[in-house]
């Protein structure tokens, strides 16, 4: 079974600075998808960014980018120019590309990000 580990329960960043959230995962599969979701205090789950394992190029979405290291099974999220609205829980998630595995997201335990004004 796949597992996702987020080793940083809490992180803090100064507004306008850059922060990196760590995520590692364990899988024996070669094809899969990785995601970062954000959960603000409103409880809504919001997709931040996603990466296909077969793509070597790191995904970017505006101020958000990932460092995907397939061999190391690492998928970190970098937030540049942090804003107060970035304060939230961030969840890393894994999804198998094999239909026999069922269509589900396996989540990490989350990292709570605080942004200091």
């Amino acid at each position, binding site marked *: 079974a796949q597992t996702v580990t987020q080793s940083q329960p809490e992180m803090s960043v100064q507004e306008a600075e850059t922060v990196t959230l760590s995520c590692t995962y364990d899988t024996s599969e070669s094809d899969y998808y990785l995601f970062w979701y954000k959960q603000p205090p409103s409880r809504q*789950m919001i997709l931040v960014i996603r990466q296909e394992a077969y793509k070597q190029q790191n995904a970017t979405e505006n101020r958000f980018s990932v460092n995907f290291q397939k061999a190391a099974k690492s998928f970190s999220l970098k937030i540049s120019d942090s804003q107060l609205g970035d304060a939230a829980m961030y969840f890393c998630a894994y999804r198998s590309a094999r239909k026999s595995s069922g269509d589900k997201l396996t989540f990490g335990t989350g990292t709570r990000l605080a942004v200091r004004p």
Partner: protein
Amino acid sequence: DTAVSQTPKYLVTQMGNDKSIKCEQNLGHDTMYWYKQDSKKFLKIMFSYNNKELIINETVPNRFSPKSPDKAHLNLHINSLELGDSAVYFCASSTGWGNEKLFFGSGTQLSVL
């Protein structure tokens, strides 16, 4: 228009009661899910349905019974509620496989007293 709507947002009930949470999506998606988020914020899948057919049942007690009357609805019925059932329950939908994102509802916070 809310893409995935679930009701109620909050549910407070006594141990032993039976309760239901409703979920509807207007996105035309084939796949719907129930996830549970515990007090430590850990999210774990409970069920997934594809076109009204159960695909995943992730070792959930049989007190939990999902029902999908059509592919736009996936309701969750819980019998004989226990204290440990207190959590936030999220409904979600997606087009299915691959890198397609999940659209989540806003969650139902269930408190069992």
